């Protein structure tokens, strides 16, 4: 941060969070309409209270990273989108990405259900900052949500907005679901009326996105964080989490056989209390289906940081696998889903992932695993052959999961090779459809 940025920050004193938001947490316990939203979080700072550049400076100081899984710094995206927009004299487009895609993850839907106006506020603020008059909120059509009709709820929230006051017109777009539909280039392709698959382009969506304009695609949780930073400031944001991974975060937690719950926490918090209900556990899946398994002993003592877990927090999935389940079966179940979700565009992904999935199924079945040698070596070899060779990171994330399974479930692998399975319950735990 430069001296100029600091000067700008002093000019506008952030409000402190109203008592409700301070006491009850960043998310309310029930859905809020626009008036309740204002009472809960405080009013959205008016356009003249946040001079141009101030919000970006705060975001940079806060160190916000994308919460969709990849963890890319938001500030750098803003800089490159606004640079591209200036260079090409085009108005950029802002997209809040609510296509969670992953069947096990619920935090984005949870956020949109309880506080849709937080996401809409974030869109308005980013729109003002980047001088965009158009912003899009993309959500999954018929998104499965235990609580009710999410699309209708969000549509009502959008209709409650005052466009003249906001200065940014928000469009709600329903997008077909699917694991890779939320990948930014795939999402932009859908919004442009295309097939909704990851694309090869010489320019990223930051330069050529929706309608050819420079486009900022950001996960809805990240967009909501912008709305909070605009109100309470960067230092409030940095009070949460660790220096390396600051900010409040939402996690989807599976602990045992109960329904998943979305919890509000931050990096640096101990992991074990979140999953204690599931004890005894065998392992914990961290990040998402593109994430990694970690062993139970590590999960019991580690804090939620990338440094201690050895794996990134990704899209915030934390799934504890009870000791009576088989980690290899679970991984094979997820891997089959991931292979079938391949767009089938790139050879290594189209041919490699089903091959890896079939071998994983073979390894998960003790009868087969005992009969055929070399499954693990094949899995290792094929994983190396697909990594980094797709248009998107679908193959990379999928082999990350497989590799972590082969490391964490070493004893299970040895047992299966001997023809026995240590897990009693062979039903899959996590959803995969």
């Amino acid at each position, binding site marked *: 941060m430069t001296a100029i940025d600091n000067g700008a920050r002093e000019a506008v004193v952030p409000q402190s969070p109203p008592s409700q938001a301070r006491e009850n947490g960043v998310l309310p316990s029930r859905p809020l309409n626009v008036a309740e939203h204002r009472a809960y979080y405080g009013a959205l700072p008016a356009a003249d209270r946040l001079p141009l550049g101030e919000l970006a400076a705060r975001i940079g100081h806060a160190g916000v990273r994308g919460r969709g899984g990849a963890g890319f710094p938001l500030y750098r995206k803003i800089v490159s989108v606004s640079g591209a927009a200036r260079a090409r004299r085009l108005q950029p487009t802002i997209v809040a990405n609510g296509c969670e895609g992953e069947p096990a993850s619920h935090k984005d839907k949870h956020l949109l259900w309880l506080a849709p106006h937080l996401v809409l506020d974030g869109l308005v603020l980013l729109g003002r900052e980047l001088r965009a008059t158009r912003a899009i909120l993309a959500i999954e059509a018929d998104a499965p949500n235990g609580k009710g009709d999410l699309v209708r709820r969000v549509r009502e929230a959008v209709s409650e907005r005052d466009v003249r006051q906001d200065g940014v017109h928000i469009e709600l777009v329903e997008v077909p679901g699917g694991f890779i539909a939320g990948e930014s280039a795939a999402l932009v392709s859908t919004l442009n009326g295309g097939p909704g698959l990851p694309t090869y382009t010489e320019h990223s969506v930051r330069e050529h996105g929706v309608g050819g304009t420079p486009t900022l695609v950001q996960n809805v949780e990240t967009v909501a964080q912008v709305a909070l930073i605009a109100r309470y400031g960067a230092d409030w944001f940095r009070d949460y989490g660790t220096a390396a991974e600051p900010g409040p975060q939402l996690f989807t937690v599976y602990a045992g056989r109960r329904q998943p719950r979305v919890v509000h926490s931050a990096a640096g918090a101990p992991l074990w209390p979140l999953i204690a209900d599931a004890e005894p556990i065998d392992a914990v899946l961290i990040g998402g289906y593109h994430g990694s398994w970690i062993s139970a002993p590590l999960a019991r003592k580690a804090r939620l940081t990338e440094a201690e877990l050895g794996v990134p927090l990704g899209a915030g999935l934390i799934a504890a696998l009870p000791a009576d389940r088989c980690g290899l079966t679970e991984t094979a179940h997820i891997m089959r889903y991931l*292979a079938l979700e*391949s767009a*089938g565009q790139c050879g290594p992904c*189209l*041919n490699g*992932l*089903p091959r890896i*999935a079939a071998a994983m199924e073979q390894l998960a079945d003790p009868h*087969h695993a005992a009969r055929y040698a070399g499954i693990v070596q094949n899995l290792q070899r094929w994983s190396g052959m697909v990594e980094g060779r797709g248009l998107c990171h679908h193959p990379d994330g999928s082999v990350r999961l497989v590799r972590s399974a082969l490391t964490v479930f070493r004893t299970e692998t040895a047992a299966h090779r001997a023809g026995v399975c240590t897990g009693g319950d062979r039903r899959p735990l996590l959803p995969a459809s």
Partner: protein
Amino acid sequence: MNASVLWYTSQATGIVSLVLYTMVMMLGIAVAGQGRLPGLPRFGTVALHRSISLLSIVFLAVHIATAILDSYVNISVLATFVPFASSYEPLWVGLGAVAVDLMIALVVTSLLRDRISPRIWRAVHWLAYAFWPIVIAHTIGLGSGSGGLISGWELWLTIACVLAVFAALGWRIAVQLERSRRTPAQVLQTMRSEVRA
């Protein structure tokens, strides 16, 4: 130099060029279909396609130069580049001139491939599918050795060239159909049955 030497050199290099361009076509089709030649790594197909097409320029140049220099029939320099400007067999020589022009376009765009848009290169490269039939027609019209319609072994050679390129095209279409049918679910099924077998 004996006049007939020039004439027969022109005829012979023409036939060699036909064979080389047939090979270039087949290799190009193999590259587009991501095929692999036995004993060659995959990049070898591209390298061979490129090398043979550049080599064929030499034979084409000799073919054209001897045709101009030769006094048996009168073909002007202009007639080798401008289609249908020849007084001798305007149609068949004219087709040769069209082929020369297309050849220049193909080679120049390929040499400048790094500097032009891939779309332009691709569009121009599709002209190869026009270039090669024109070469065949030119050969049929003038390839007899005496300047008339093709006959004898030259005819059989030309037929063999046509069949070879058709075979390559057939392979390409079959591969493409097979690939477009392939989905992750289908690959997974195949893999599973391989595992169970």
